Structures are given as structure tokens and as C-alpha cells.
């Protein structure tokens, strides 16, 4: 149960990017989990080469991934959104991108499991009665919560954050107000990708990663985003905790091979029964 809650905090970090890009910008970026794993590998490489803390690496690399994300959006905009056929072909574009990143990673690093090392990995706080909290889970959870809070404040309080909210509601109106929606969307997309890369750094401290791990996270990310209500940051956190607890319980009672089915099952259910999510508008 505690493990599930902690996992939920981490899942929130994983899903924030999707919540921003898919929920608010309405861009179905299927390649998001590939950026997550790319972040994992970036953190792993710097961690194993120089012994830098993986999460510090993750934070340090966010500007780089921000630029990559902004670049990807520019390509997407120029080729699909301007022509007006973004939904079908854009989806295929991101699917291809997911594939390219995954295969490139497996060609470069092979399919061995990789994991980052840090001082706190392997230690835990003892709560007594045989119940302990591993730092390995606690630290990513706290970082995830911090990310959620930061994004929440950013969207609600700052100029650019409010502009992102505005662009999700009415692009034309934003243009009339004198702001450039493309510019705003580029920023939002970049932030989404940067969030994914940071979450990737968390992931590589929690569990070993192989290039095809991204497939497990497609379902989790989109399940959480849809369940939380498209684009609602608070809803994302709640949905992430629900999923984390559900997966942990499933793994405890039925074995770990079933836990993956939980997220996809919840996703299918949410899509079929209530596509607006728990906190949808």
C-alpha cells in the first residue's frame, strides 16, 4: 500500500508531460515514452561514467530535452498542423518516431538491463514492524510531487503558463490578444518533453531499464492522463496514485506479470465508460 502510494508519485512525474502535450495541446504524442527512456539512458550514461547522481543529471539535462521537444514540435507543426491533417498522419509520425528512438537506443546500448547507482539506492527507512520505505522509491516520489507542484504553479501563476492554458481553450482568441499560439505551443511541448526526460532519470534509479521499457509506459501514461481528466494537473496526480496502488495490489495478489494489464485495463475502461476522466470538464 505504501509502495503503491510512492509509485503513484513517480507515475505522476511520468505522466505530467503527456498531460501537458496530449491533455492541453491535444497533440497525441505517442513518442512520449521514448523520450522517457531516452532520459533514462542519458542519466545512466553520465551516472556510470562520472558517478553523478542520476536525478541531478536528469535536472541538468532538462534544457537539452526542452530544445529537442521544441524542435520536434516545429517539425510537427510545419508538416502536419499547418496542413490541417494532424490527427491521422501526425499519430503515425509520432509512432514512427517512437520506433526510431527505441531501435536507435537498442542498437547503441544493446538489450541489457541498465540501472543507475546513487548513494541512497538500497537503503531504507525502517518504520518498525517489518515495514520500511526504500529511498529508491521515496526520492523519485518526492521529486515527482515537486514536479507536479511546480507545473501547477507555473500553469496557474505565470504569464506563459496562463498562455498555455489559454491556447488549449481557444487558439483564435489568443491570437486576437496579440500572442502567438505557435510560440506558446512550442514552449509547452518542450516542457512536456523535458518533464519526460526528468521522469526517465527517476525511472532508471527505481528499476532497471531496457529500450523496449517504453511500451509498458505508453499505457500507464495515457491511462493516467485520461483517467485524471485531460490536462488537469491535480487529476493527473490523483489518477497516478490510484494506478500505483492498483498495480501494487495486483502484483501482490496475482503476481507481477498481471500488474501491467491493470494500467491498460483501466485505460480501456476509462476510454469506454468515461472518456472525460474523473476530473474532466
Amino acid at each position, binding site marked *: 500500500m505504501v509502495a503503491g502510494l510512492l509509485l503513484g508519485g513517480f507515475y505522476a512525474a511520468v505522466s505530467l508531460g503527456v498531460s501537458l502535450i*496530449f491533455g492541453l495541446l491535444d497533440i*497525441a504524442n*505517442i513518442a512520449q515514452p521514448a523520450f522517457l527512456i531516452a532520459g533514462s539512458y542519458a542519466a545512466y550514461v553520465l551516472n556510470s561514467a562520472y558517478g553523478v547522481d542520476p536525478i541531478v543529471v536528469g535536472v541538468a539535462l532538462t534544457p537539452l530535452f526542452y530544445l529537442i521537444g521544441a524542435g520536434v514540435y516545429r*517539425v510537427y507543426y510545419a*508538416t502536419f498542423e499547418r*496542413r490541417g*491533417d494532424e*490527427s*491521422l*498522419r501526425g*499519430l*503515425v*509520425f509520432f*509512432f*514512427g*518516431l517512437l*520506433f*526510431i528512438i527505441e*531501435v*536507435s537506443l*537498442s*542498437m547503441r546500448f544493446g538489450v541489457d538491463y541498465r540501472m543507475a547507482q546513487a548513494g541512497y539506492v538500497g537503503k531504507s527507512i525502517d518504520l518498525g514492524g517489518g515495514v520500511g520505505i526504500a529511498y529508491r522509491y521515496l526520492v523519485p516520489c518526492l521529486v515527482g510531487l515537486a514536479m507536479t507542484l511546480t507545473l501547477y504553479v507555473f500553469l496557474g501563476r505565470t504569464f506563459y503558463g496562463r498562455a498555455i492554458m489559454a491556447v488549449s481553450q481557444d487558439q483564435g482568441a489568443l491570437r486576437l490578444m496579440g500572442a502567438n499560439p505557435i510560440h506558446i505551443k512550442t514552449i509547452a511541448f518542450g516542457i512536456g518533453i523535458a518533464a519526460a526526460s526528468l521522469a526517465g532519470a527517476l525511472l532508471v534509479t527505481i528499476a532497471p531499464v531496457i529500450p523496449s521499457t517504453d*511500451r509498458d509506459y*505508453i*499505457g500507464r501514461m*495515457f*491511462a493516467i492522463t*485520461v483517467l485524471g481528466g485531460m490536462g488537469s494537473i491535480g487529476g493527473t496526480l490523483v489518477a497516478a496514485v490510484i494506478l500505483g496502488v492498483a498495480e501494487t495490489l495486483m502484483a501482490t495478489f496475482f*503476481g507481477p*506479470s*498481471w500488474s*501491467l*494489464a491493470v494500467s*491498460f*485495463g483501466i*485505460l*480501456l475502461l476509462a*476510454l*469506454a465508460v468515461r*472518456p472525460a476522466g474523473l476530473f474532466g470538464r
Partner: protein
Amino acid sequence: MTRMGWSVLVGVAVIAGGIGLAGLRVNPYVYFAGYVILQYVVIATAWNILGGYAGYVNFGTPAFFALGAYTAVFLIRSVKAPLPVLIVAGGLVAALLGLGIGYLTLRLRGTFFSIATLALSVVLQTMIINWEYVGGSRGISVLRPSGPPFGSYVTFLFTVMVALAVVAVLVARFIERSWIGRGLAALRDNEEAAECMGVPTLRLKLFATTVSGFFLGVAGAPFPYYVTFVEPNSAFALDYAVNALAMPMIGGTTSWVGPVIGAVLLGTASQVATVTISSELNLLIVGVVLVAFVVLAPEGLLGLTRRLRGR
């Protein structure tokens, strides 16, 4: 009716040609590779009935393919059913799943539908992994029945696949030219408008998902005999999802010729790349080609030639 008669005749001729080809005693690897390419002709054509004609992008190709394959495994283990039964049964079970996702389209359009099919694939894979009777996560080996009707078993499977590909393409061509194809095109361009004009959108969508699912299952049914060892990771490989998408996109999605061209080109290219370079590089090529085509030539090769001829 005569036009349809002609196309059936051409189909029969192709099948006869396939049998003739199986009689030639060339390197057995040719049949091995040829089987895979033909299998992709079936998959790409089946995908295109839903994705190209109706505009619903299905990421769950592996689910249908593997369902066909695992139905076959189940029937081989339980009653030792002959190959034709396997193909029909595999197709029917997958068609049932197709009907199911057809009802999903009631609530889910566009992106949401695609994500749901992707989720479906993973849920199904988890169920297979936990089902010991068909091998679970370790996989199961399948014995080919002794004494195929002619040639070696691989050449026999090759001809079977030629026939399946011909049937799939003929059905797709028939759908495209009939009122069903026009109705699907109408709902692809604007579902609300089509509904308002009296197009029975739900029935058409259910038809498209069912037929598409049927042929994806059919493509998977002979798979156990082809590889003789079935395990979830190979049956549910993401390659099928990417290829099923990439082939029609490269060829052109609006006509039955498109998926065939795409499957033959990309299928041959990846067979050559797998042999000469490496299988991972081959997947990378598929991904890059897919993205390049979507960005640069969204209408596929067919659209490209049409545009060049037009000017």
C-alpha cells in the same frame, strides 16, 4: 459482373503461378522470405480496410495477428485440427475481436481509438503470458503435420499464403468499388456529415473492423506451423503494428494497390536488410521510411505518381 469475373480469373491465375513457383526447386530460403512478404500483403491489406478506407488508425495489429496464431495453437494442441480449419477459426476469432473494437468506435474517435487498440494489444498479451495451456511466457513448440499435399512444408505454406493474399486483395478491391467503400470514404472524410446524409455509419464501421480483424487473424493462423515455436514476444511483436501502418502509408491508403505495393517493397527491402545487415537496422529503416513518407509524401507512392503525371 464481368469485371468481377475478370478479377477472380486474375486471382486464380496468380494462385496457379504461386503453385508453379512452389514447384521450382530454388533455394528454400526464397520461399521462407516469400512467405513473410505475402503475410505482410495480407496484413497491410487487412489493416487498410479499416485504416485507409474508414480512417480509423489501428495500432493493435499484433493483437489480431497473435489471436489468429494462438487460436491455431489451441486447436492444434486440443484437437489437432487441419490447416484450413485453423485459418478459418483464427480468422473468425479475430473477427469477433474486430466486432468488439467496432463498438468502441461508438464512443472513441481518432486518437482515442488508436490508443485503445494499443492498450488492447498489451492486455491480450498479458492474458496469453498467463495462460499456460498455450505455452505461457516460455512459448510452445508446434510439430508440423507430416506429409504436406505437395513439396516440402515450407513451399506448401508459401502457396497457402499466396492464396490467402489473393483472397484478401480481391475482398479489399470489392469493398473499395462497392457502395460500402464509398460509404466508408464518406465517413472517413466527415463522419457527422455522412451520418446526416443517411450513410449507416455504425453498420459500416462494424463491417470494416470485423473484416479487417478477420484477415489479420487469417494472416496469423498459419504462423505456428511456419515458425514451429510460438512465444508471446514474437507473436505480439511491435513490428507488425509498425509494418501494418507503414506499408499502406508508403503505397497509398486510398486504393487496394497501395498496401500491396508497400508490402512488396518494404517487405522485400527488410528481408534483404535482415540477411545482409542486421534485423535491428532493418527495423530502424522501416521507422525512418515511415516518418519520411508521412512527412514528405502523405499520399504514398500512388499519390506521388498521380501528382507527377498530373503536372
